[in-house]
Structure formats: structure tokens, C-alpha cells
């Protein structure tokens, strides 16, 4: 066991856990944030996607010991500044979710995509999102929601920062 001081969604979280505990379980079982989902435990499905310093990471394969002191962790609960972000709004507008279980991870992957590519093509989206499984088959609406969010970002003064 070891003590870790983490920054999750801008808040300090102190945990005393085994160094090999994946960030997924730290976030879910110790920080009490249940939005990040467990799907496969092997970084194959993307349901557990979070951001570490803005970069997408599969939290099920990220040992807590690999998180540095100054690293900033963002989960689905932390995007949008307490309001719905542009991408969450797009997800709702396009009526993406069916069962909804994979959608936190999908949204986190989509945010990362739009940060690096503000005008993704279908091919860009497929390539960035094919690591995220959706067992219900909502892929077509995920694509549409990403296009919608990209368009919204362009007209929004808030731009990417508020995404």
C-alpha cells in the first residue's frame, strides 16, 4: 500500500492503495466517481477512457503509480465545468445512447479527438473512435454527434476550452 495525492477533476483526492491498482478502480472505488466504466480490463473496449493531462488514457491499464504528482486526471464528471459541455449536448441532441454504458468512454475519446482535430472527417472519426466498442451499435450517431460538436465549437465563442 502507498499513499497517492491525485488531482481528479481539479479536486485533490488522497488514496492509500496498492501501486498496481488501475486508475479505473481508484476513481470508481475510492474517489466515488462511477461514470468511468469497466468493460474489459485490457484496454480493448474504451469504456474506461479518462484524460491524463488532456490525453486520453485507458484507465483500466493505467496503474495509479504511473500517475505523476502534477498530473491532472479528468473523468466524464469533470468535463463541462458543471454545465453540459458542447460534446455532451451534441450527444444528447443526436440521441446517441441506447443502453448508455459505453458512452462515457466514447465521449472522453471524442473530446480528445476534437482537441487534436477540430474538423475531423468520417475517416478521422473512425480511426480515433474504433478503439471504443458500443455493443448496441450506436456508431452512426456517435459520428453525427462528433460532427455536430465540431460545428458547434466553430460558432461558439467558448471554443475548445469549454468543450
Amino acid at each position, binding site marked *: 500500500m502507498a499513499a497517492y495525492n491525485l488531482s481528479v477533476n481539479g479536486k485533490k483526492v488522497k488514496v492509500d492503495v496498492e501501486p498496481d491498482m488501475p486508475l479505473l478502480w481508484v476513481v470508481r472505488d475510492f474517489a466515488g466517481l*462511477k461514470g468511468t466504466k469497466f468493460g474489459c480490463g485490457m484496454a480493448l473496449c474504451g469504456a474506461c477512457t479518462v484524460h491524463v493531462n488532456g490525453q486520453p488514457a485507458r484507465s483500466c491499464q493505467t496503474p495509479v503509480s504511473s500517475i505523476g504528482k502534477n498530473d491532472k486526471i479528468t473523468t466524464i464528471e469533470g468535463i463541462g465545468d458543471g454545465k453540459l459541455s458542447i460534446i455532451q449536448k451534441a450527444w444528447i441532441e443526436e440521441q446517441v445512447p441506447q443502453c448508455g454504458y459505453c458512452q462515457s468512454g466514447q465521449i472522453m475519446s471524442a473530446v480528445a479527438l476534437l482537441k487534436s482535430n477540430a474538423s475531423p472527417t468520417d475517416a478521422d472519426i473512425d480511426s480515433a473512435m474504433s478503439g471504443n466498442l458500443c455493443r448496441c*451499435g450506436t456508431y452512426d450517431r456517435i459520428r453525427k454527434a462528433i460532427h455536430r460538436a465540431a460545428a458547434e465549437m466553430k460558432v461558439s465563442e467558448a471554443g475548445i476550452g469549454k468543450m
Partner: protein
Amino acid sequence: MQTSEQTSRRNFIKIAAAAGGGLFLGFNWLNSSALPVVVDAKKVAAGSVNFNSYLSIGTDNVITIISPNPEIGQGIKTAFPMVVAEELDADWKQVKTVQGNLDTGIYERQVTGGSGAVPHSWERLRKAGATARYLLVEAAAAQWNVPASECTTENGKVWHRTSGKSLSYGELAEAASKMPAPTEVKLKKESDFKLIGQSVRNVDNNNIATGKPLFGLDVYREGMLFAMIQRPKAFGLKLKSVNSEAAKAMPGIVDVVTFENSVAVVGKSTWQVKKAKDALKIEYEKAAELESSADHNRIFQQLMENGEATVRRKNGDVDTAFKNAAKVIKSEYQCPFLPHSPLEPMNFFAHVREDGVELIGPTQTPERARTEVAKLTGIAPEKITVEITRQGGGFGRRLAADFVLEAANVSKLVKAPVKVIWTREDDMTGGIYRPAVRYRFEAALDKSGELIGYKLRGVGMNSGNSTREDNFPSGSVENLLIDSVEYKSPITTGPWRAPITNFLAYAEQSFLDEVAEAAGKDPVEFRLALLEKAKKSPVGDIKYDVDRMIDVIKLAAEKSKWGKKKGVYQGFSVYFSHRSYVAQVGEVVMEKGKPVLKNVIAAVDCGIVINKSGSLQQVRGGVVDGLGHAMYGNMTFKDGAPDQRNFNGFRLIRMNDIPEVDVHFVDNGISPTGLGEPALPPAGGAVANAFYKATKQRLRNQPFINEEAFKGIS
């Protein structure tokens, strides 16, 4: 703002009471001909009246509608309340939907399975809304001293247009609850529907997009322990001995307990119990044959030739028909086992106390869960509560109660609230699969290419009857024999989205394509001619609606411009399952010498479409699911153990694999039927037949990706 929540019934009553009373309707789910009963609001608030289900209107105008059936992504938590709200003329923005818990005193068929919830509840939901509307109108008319016939309703208000007066439902709720209940109510005409048929958002969308704890895996209770379970690593093994010393000594571990053939590691967090589970040293011994896929292939061959078959349907004289045939076509089709792979792995919470049991989690059959836990614990069902969470997919897997029983077993043994969590490997190797099956089809054609004889034999594993003997083309062929042979495997199996038909439809629709080709006929014309025959001179019982089948075929042909697109290879498929009719056209084009699936056009007759948005996605998702598993889904066994353990070995369809899916609904005003399953069965056939057109290669086994014809393509 449209809102929704998960709540216990107790909480719901509390919420209702806090809202200051109002109109409560217990509507009878048990008998669709009966009208809802009006119940005194105060009594409801006190929780002293035993109801069926509740529609409540608060004095604050909030209309609360409980949806009793488990939500696994099929959209029932949105669709059910829409039906009530439609007849009520409620303002949808003021409707709050609540997931009901198990209550067999109130609800009937609290099951998600068989695409049956909508057809079962359609009429009773409408009557619930219409009765409340009637009472609100009566209350307003009495208050204004005008005839009720002069009052109209719109958007949560009763109006008296000539005087310009209006009252909101909230203002009228209390008075309405005191009006005498009607003996019958008039339901709306389909043409007057305002909400039904619209694209309405899934009521949990906001909560999903913001990561709220909605799912079984998110359930947490004070003092709750986590458990993971080691089950035998192969089907046919049983537990011999357990050495749990190392596991018990690991951090966070509270106990290791054994029941049946399972060893449960119980501790304070998910990761700790997972690690300790991996440290268990367990010995097993053989209790049954340890089967491999090679054994299954041999068994299929043997039973196809020599198995003891049960005749399922027999018309005319097939022997003579085949003797007199000008041409005989014979083909066999086979598919492997499949895990369900819902993205949320199996999990359940149980707290077994001396005086009762609390169960919370994702189950498609809460009543079965309760019955089995009652049997296990000896605690009476009325002392067992089941709270139904939102579920990260089900696909039939959560119809079983094995994971609920595990949670109850562990909680009973450790005397604490416990949540059992399965890893993906547990979920994939833990059993209850879509069983493998093999079919042999034979068709006899006369000189003019008429289908004069048809035979189907299914060899199934633990499936009871691997055929659907009364489905098309039964009824259209003079001489027909359908039989099945069963094999009992120690590998556990169960319903998988569109049981039996998820593969049978593909096999049958591919075979009919072969027959049409041998007869020198267009596949669509060939099917239509058979259906015309079934209409004019039906052979034996026909259990599908011939006209509805013809209509979806024609609609799919029209929308796909069947046979008229240059450079596009089209394949046709049509299937009736779970009371709905779906025809599909797969479209393949050649790109750089390789066949690429571009589009699937689906024509769907599920009667009235309740939620356009949800329905479109059930069809699109069904096609993607059917296609994905036909293409890649493969579970094989070696010595009783599954070879695939996670999504690296077992391939699911991903975003870059999907075609466009273009959906068209038949508008016929018929009472709605389900959509969770019917779009899946025809998908494989439409795609395989299009692939054949493009490549002249038949795909007779799933997954397609392992077929010779696919080598070098994907």
C-alpha cells in the same frame, strides 16, 4: 425539463407525498380490458393501498409515470411513459419517468425479453392515460359547471374554449381523484397522436452523458463488500480442493468462501478481490465430458445423418416430391457458440439478512431472481425486494439468475451486503451462450422451377427445438418436412438476442437465394410468388401474416431500387420474428477488386412506431449486431474451456466496420409489436446474398471471416 430517475417505490411514494398530493392512478397491468382504478392520494402517500402501477399528477404539475420493465437499452423507459402521456394529453416536458422495482402485486410480465413488452402493455398503458384524462376533464367541467363534452385537453391543461377558461392538470388533480371512475374510456385515433411517432430523447440521456451512477456496477451501499468468483475453468469440471491461504493474506481481503463449484473472494475493493482471486490455488476434477469444438463438428455430422429426429411440421409427401424433382438443391449451414458480451459485465448486489433480502442490479427477469433467491435462502418472496438498475446491455444474458444467486450465496455466507462483479474474462468464459447449431436444407424444383418440396433438419445443442417450423416458407410449399435433433452438451446455453432465429434466418434466407438461383428466378420475385401461393392456397397452418410479409418485401425492394443500381450487388432477406416483419437489402460494391458492404436497407413492419428515434436505433443496432456477429463472432472450445476470453480473441464489430443502415417503417396503424430483436435475424442473409452476387461465393458458415471465400479479403 424532462427528467427521469431510478427510485425505489418507497422513495417514489415519498416524492409523491412531498409534492403535496394529487391524482394517483393505479392502472391495472394484469388485465388490459380493465380500467385503471382511482385511488385516494392521501392513502397512496401513506403507502397503505396496494396498487397495480402508478401514474401520479402532482399539484406542481409534475406527472410521474413508472416504467416497470427493465431497461437494457431497448428504450422502454422512454416508450412506455410516452404511451401514457399521449392518451393523457400531458405536456411531455412535465413528465418524469421512474424505473419501477419488482412488484408482482402490481405488474405483470416485468421482463425484458422476446420483444414482448410493448405488445403486452400497449392497451393498458393507453387506458391508464385516457382514464386520467377523463377524470381531469370531469373535474374541470364540474368546476366550471359546463358539459364535459365542451372541454378539450392539450399540453397538460383542460380547456373550455368558448369561455376561454383553462386549468392545469396540477390544479385539477385533487378534485379529479374524487370523481367517479368511468366504466369505459375512449382511446385516441391514431391520426390524433401528437407524441407517439415523434423522435423523443431517451429519458436518461442527460444522466448517461454526464456519467451519473445508473448501472448495476455503480451501485454502492454503506458497508458493502466486493466479491469476485472463480468458477471451474472448463465445462465438465467440478471443484476438488481449494487453497486460499495466499489469497486470504492479501490486502483488503475479508474472506474466501466456497459454494457449489465456486470460490468467492470477498474484500474491500474491486481490484483487491481481483488480485486475490488470481492467487487462489484450486484443483478440479472431471464430472462430465470436456468437449472441444472438433467434437461438436463430429457430433453435428453424426446427428445430421443418424440422429433421432423429432418431426416439427409435415405437409404433403416430401419423398414423392423429391423423387419427381427435376432439380434438387441441398446445403448445410453452421454457426458457433457466442457469448452475449454486454459491455457491462454481470454483477449484482445482495444483502441477505435473517428477516429478508435486498437485491439490486441489472436483471432482465427480476421475478426469476427473487424466486430463485427465495429458494436458496428459504426466505419468503414477499420479504425479498428487487431494485432494477439501468443495464449496460443484456442480449438475453441477464434472463438467467446465476449471478444473482452468486451474490445471495456470498452475502449469506459472509453475513454482509455484497456486490459480485464479473471480469470480462468471467463474463466470456462463465457460460450461458448462444449454442452452436447446424442446419441442412433440401429443395425440390420441378421442370418449370416451381418449389415442390422442402426439407429442413436442425441439429441443435441444448436448444429444445432448433427450428421455427411454422415460419415462411412453411404454408407456401405443398410438400414439406421440418425436423430437429437435439444434443445435450455440458456447456451451458441460453437465449441470445432473437433466440434460434439469430442464425436460422440467415441460413434459411441464404438457402432460398440458392433455390431462387437454381430456379432461374429473381430472389424477390421468387419469394413474392411463394407468398402469393400461401395466400391463395395455404398449405396447413400459417402463423405469419402473408400480406404484411409481402408489404415489407415490396417496400425494401422499392426503397433499395432492387435490381436497378449499376455496379451495386444486392442481396435480399426477409424474416418474421417476435411478431414483427423485417426485409433487408444488403449492398456490396467492388473496390480495388474487393467486395465492400456499403449499405443495408431495412423495411420494417412493427405496427405503430412509438418512439421514432428509439425505433430507428433498434433497427440500426439490430442490423449492426446481426452483421457483426455473422462476420466475426466465434467462440470455440478446447477440452471444455472457451478459447476466447476477452475482446482480443473475441471480435466485436467496431465503428470502422459498419455500413450505412437506411430504415423505412410501414405505416399501417396496427397495434405495435416489439423491436428489440426482429431487425437482427435478416441481416446476415442480406449481406451473404449480396456477397454472393459480387463474388459468386456462398457463405454457409459463420463467422464469415473464417470462410474460404473471405481469405485475402478482410
